[in-house]
């Protein structure tokens, strides 16, 4: 999670989809030619081939997978999906994951939104130090605070507790979210907030009525990234949630895969449950994901 050192302004700069077209003289483009496309296609197959194979295998019986692990399925049997759904108790774990995602997103947006507003539109003495700390703090390895945190959470009865996990996500995601939102909020002219203040609006009113409506693309990006991280997150979840009934999809999937390690068909179907929503959402909101994640650096 090293938002660190990169300037959020430069990082959020999304590559424009066809940026090559208007600016480059055509002469340079032709040189790419067929050779470039062949290499690019090979790279694309390397990137998504394994995931396509899993999508295929989810529809195949184990005998069929054994005979040919990479080929498309002979028929579209949904047997693996129904079987994996009940045996992996996906109804429960998906619900847990949704609670975790929603809780993390709302909490992070509120906490980071308030902080980002203070660090961009209010004169806070020492604000620069806070920004520096957020940059640096997000580079710290979790190994630094893992063990005492686990001890503390045990004392507070927050282990095996969805809320306990959500609070950790708030703390680990909020620095990134604050820095990203701050870069959005800095683009809103101070005149707007000053004018509202002269009209007698309180800071909370200004934050809600003036800043929030202008900063919503930033919030949307933060919400998407935090939701993605919470859905995919594995390290904190496996350390702090042991009760199978409370597990999120990620760690439950891991346990499921260990249990049915030879049943590739069913494991593949379970994998589709987990990656399907993410990939679909990514394809729809690609640019927002890319800009958010490249700003998030390293998580």
């Amino acid at each position, binding site marked *: 999670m090293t938002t*660190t*050192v990169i300037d959020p302004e430069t990082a959020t700069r999304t*590559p*424009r989809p*066809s940026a*090559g077209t208007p*600016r480059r003289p055509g002469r340079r*483009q032709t*040189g790419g030619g067929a050779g*470039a*496309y062949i290499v*690019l296609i090979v*790279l*694309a197959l*390397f*990137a*998504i081939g*394994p*995931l396509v194979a*899993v999508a295929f295998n989810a529809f195949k019986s184990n005998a069929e997978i*054994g005979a*040919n692990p990479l080929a498309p399925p002979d028929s579209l049997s949904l047997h693996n999906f129904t079987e994996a759904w009940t045996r992996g108790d996906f109804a429960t774990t998906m619900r847990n994951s949704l609670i975790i995602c929603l809780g993390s997103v709302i909490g992070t947006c509120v*906490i980071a939104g*308030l*902080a980002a507003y*203070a*660090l961009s539109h*209010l*004169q806070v*003495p020492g604000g620069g130090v806070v920004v520096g700390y957020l940059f640096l*703090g997000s580079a*710290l*390895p*979790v*190994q*630094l*605070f893992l*063990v*005492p*945190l686990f*001890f*503390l959470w045990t004392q507070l009865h927050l282990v095996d507790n969805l809320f306990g996990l959500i*609070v950790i996500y708030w703390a*680990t995601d*909020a620095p990134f979210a*604050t820095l990203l939102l701050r870069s959005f909020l800095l683009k809103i002219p101070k005149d707007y907030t000053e004018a509202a203040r002269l009209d007698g609006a309180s800071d909370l009113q200004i934050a809600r009525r003036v800043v929030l409506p202008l900063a919503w693309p930033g919030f949307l990006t933060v919400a998407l990234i935090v939701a993605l991280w919470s859905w995919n997150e594995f390290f904190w979840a496996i*350390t702090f949630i042991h009760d199978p009934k409370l597990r999120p999809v990620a*760690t439950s*999937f*891991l346990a499921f*895969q260990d249990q049915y390690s030879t049943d*590739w068909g069913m494991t*593949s179907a379970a*994998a589709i449950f*987990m990656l399907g929503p993410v*990939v679909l959402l*990514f394809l729809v909101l*690609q640019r927002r*994901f890319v800009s958010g994640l*490249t700003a998030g650096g390293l998580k």
Partner: protein
Amino acid sequence: MTTAVAGTAVRAPGAARARRRSAVIGWAFLAPLLVLNLLVVLGPSIATVYYSLTDWSGLGPAKFIGLANYTKAFADPDVHQAVLHNAIWFVLFGSVPLAMGLLGAYLLSQIRRFQVLFRALYFIPYVVASVVNAAVWKMLLSPTSGLGQLVGIDHSWLGDTGTSLLSVNFVVDWHWWGFLAVIFLASMQSIDPQLYDAASVDGANRWQQFLSVTLPGIRPTMIFVILMTVIWTLKAFDYIFIMTQGGPAGSSEVVSTLMYKQAFNEYSAGYAAALGLSMTAITAVILAVYQYLRKKGWEDE
């Protein structure tokens, strides 16, 4: 900030009051973030410094033992092995995805059509959960129903002490290079096209243009990526923990997985704290060097 404070002295008292009010409200807005950070990150981090000097088991009382954990770590063959694995990891993780990312980004910057599509496809493994990616590759690397079986190589890539670390590293590289390609592409697109024209007028071929225009043009991004590589090498955990648990026989153990086991399986939380703090110290040194070089203007030349 300092000038603003100095300015208040000569201004009307009303302005000073407004400023003070703004400061109070500002800190109130920052409070949730800071309190949370104190509770989850900063407080436990400080506790780690103390626990690293004790024989704490993770539960119950801790006895102060000075630097014994650190001297133990220096002499521990498991730690030596793990550090060596981190070093191997760094060499591979710092070169393979970087080269692939540069190749992908450079070719993408050359083409006109399907750029968005390719970019999306390369990026997808990065947004898929580590547990899923790991499961996919466990299947593909399995000796009975994977790629090896398809081409007639019956080898347990993850179960062999000679290939376990390399195999896990390969999977991590696979999910990471596309992310780098996208970052590099964004950076390459901000290079002034006239530089390429000037180079080709001078008779530079494609490869020479890449070396003399593209690489210098993306230098700040490159330095940042190398920094991320170093930090991620120290943080390497997820895929190893999921795919091999550091095994077989410690053949894919790195410092972070070793530390995790010490804390939660061996009940040597004090020792684990010393390992965690050492890793943090290394990270801090790297960040400090990076910031120093950045301040000196190395990056923006």
